[in-house]
């Protein structure tokens, strides 16, 4: 149960350096075998958005949103550029305060929600350190003991095909490599909910396919995936349900097969045909 109990009071304050000792002394975690099966801890779902608006300076960019994200297969958010997908993910992840309405985790472990989620941003932000150190840093913040960090980090790098670059400066990676590292860092945390903002936007076809498979595996192992993508083929392959956004609003929410066969919404139909402009 890697993250059942990520020492939330601790994980942040002294995160890696001091918190480590405590973990080492504490519960010996049956990590290795369990990790392959990848059972994420912390029951924080569902996530409920009620009347959520994001309207800085009076301009409504997102809203109003009222919806609930439940456990289950991947939720894929689709929509044109500027539809508000990235903002919606940020609102859900708690990085943005809605200007109206509430975002609430409803599960029993809601108090630990911060430690049970991770996000991969549309533009990867990498720290000025080595590839490996970037992943280790995330683990340190979650209170994973110092001894365990390198192995877990390498495992995540291996999964994303970055293991040969572990020692390289993260800032010199190519855009696609940076995106994979960003995913590796998030995945190493074994989040209960993983937000992915166009995780394959910069990837070549093969890498894109590989990352897609990783995402599918993460989802299958029990992590709730909430992602955006402009790759409709990928959306078809991954999505369990689709949220279709247009100009800050969710116009349609349907099970994936239904959405791709016959969207209810006019705008969604145009979008799928590649005819919808902003």
């Amino acid at each position: 149960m890697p993250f059942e109990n990520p020492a939330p009071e601790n994980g942040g304050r002294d995160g890696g350096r001091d918190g480590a000792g405590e973990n080492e002394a504490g519960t010996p975690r049956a990590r290795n075998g369990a990790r392959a099966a990848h059972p994420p801890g912390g029951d924080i779902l569902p996530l409920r958005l009620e009347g959520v608006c994001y309207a800085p300076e009076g301009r409504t960019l997102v809203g109003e949103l009222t919806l609930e994200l439940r456990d289950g297969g991947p939720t894929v958010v689709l929509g044109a550029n500027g539809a508000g997908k990235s903002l919606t993910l940020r609102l859900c992840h708690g990085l943005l305060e809605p200007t109206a309405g509430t975002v609430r985790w409803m599960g029993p472990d809601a108090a630990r929600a911060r430690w049970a989620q991770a996000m991969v941003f549309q533009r990867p932000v990498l720290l000025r350190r080595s590839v490996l150190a970037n992943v280790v840093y995330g683990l340190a913040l979650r209170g994973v003991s110092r001894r365990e960090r390198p192995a877990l980090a390498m495992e995540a790098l291996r999964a994303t095909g970055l293991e040969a670059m572990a020692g390289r400066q993260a800032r010199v990676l190519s855009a696609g490599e940076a995106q994979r590292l960003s995913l590796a860092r998030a995945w190493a945390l074994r989040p209960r909910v993983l937000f992915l903002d166009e995780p394959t936007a910069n990837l070549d076809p093969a890498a894109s396919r590989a990352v897609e498979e990783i995402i599918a595996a993460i989802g299958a192992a029990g992590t709730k995936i909430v992602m955006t993508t402009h790759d409709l083929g990928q959306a078809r392959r991954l999505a369990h349900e689709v949220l279709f956004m247009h100009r800050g609003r969710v116009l349609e929410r349907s099970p994936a097969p239904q959405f791709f066969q016959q969207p209810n919404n006019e705008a969604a139909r145009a979008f799928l045909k590649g005819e919808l402009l902003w």
Partner: protein
Amino acid sequence: MEESVHAFREAAWLLFSGDADLWEIVWLTLRVSLTAVALAALVGLPLAGVLALYRFPGRRAVVVGLNALMGLPPVVAGLVVYLALSRSGPLGGLGLLFTPTAMVVAQFVLVTPIVTALARQVLEDLWREYGEQLRSLGASPGRAIFTLLWDGRHAVATAVLAGFGRASAEVGAVLIVGGNIAHVTRVMTTAIALETSKGNLTLALALGLILIALSVGVNGLAFLLRDLTETRNAV
């Protein structure tokens, strides 16, 4: 003309002859300025981090105030510390006036705004880039500031070096609170001022050469660090 050539030759000789008085002055200068800068960094860098991360009422005033204090004339800093430490001042009981400690305090007052203001700029830019990611990973503010300082260490070190350059080169503050007492509070800049006025150009020139070397060294180091930052940040 001949006189100054002669003075130069004498000064060079003084530098290489291991003159005890001269090196005593150099040593005190380094001790005072390095201590002042170390304390300024200890206070200024966390403060810079707080200013970079938090938005609070009055923050703008603090930032403007710090920027204004960067140009504080050393004599004014000296005067303020003098008033505080003089016998009738609030800290007069400590008996610190005309000691190296008083000089450290004066330079600390002078340099802290410089270190803080320059570092704040660095950390704020870095936070703009890192902020969401660090918050997403669950970094506490303290941890985030530490991360910013570490990842921005080359640029932050440049800010600290700027503080050291300012401290080691100023005359006014140390003169007022130190008094330029031989073997006690005489540092390079005050010695140069005094020896020049006495017509003893040899010692003044020798010290001047050391100051120039120090300044070149510090700037070279800052330049190197900047280079390092740029290659590291190459995307």
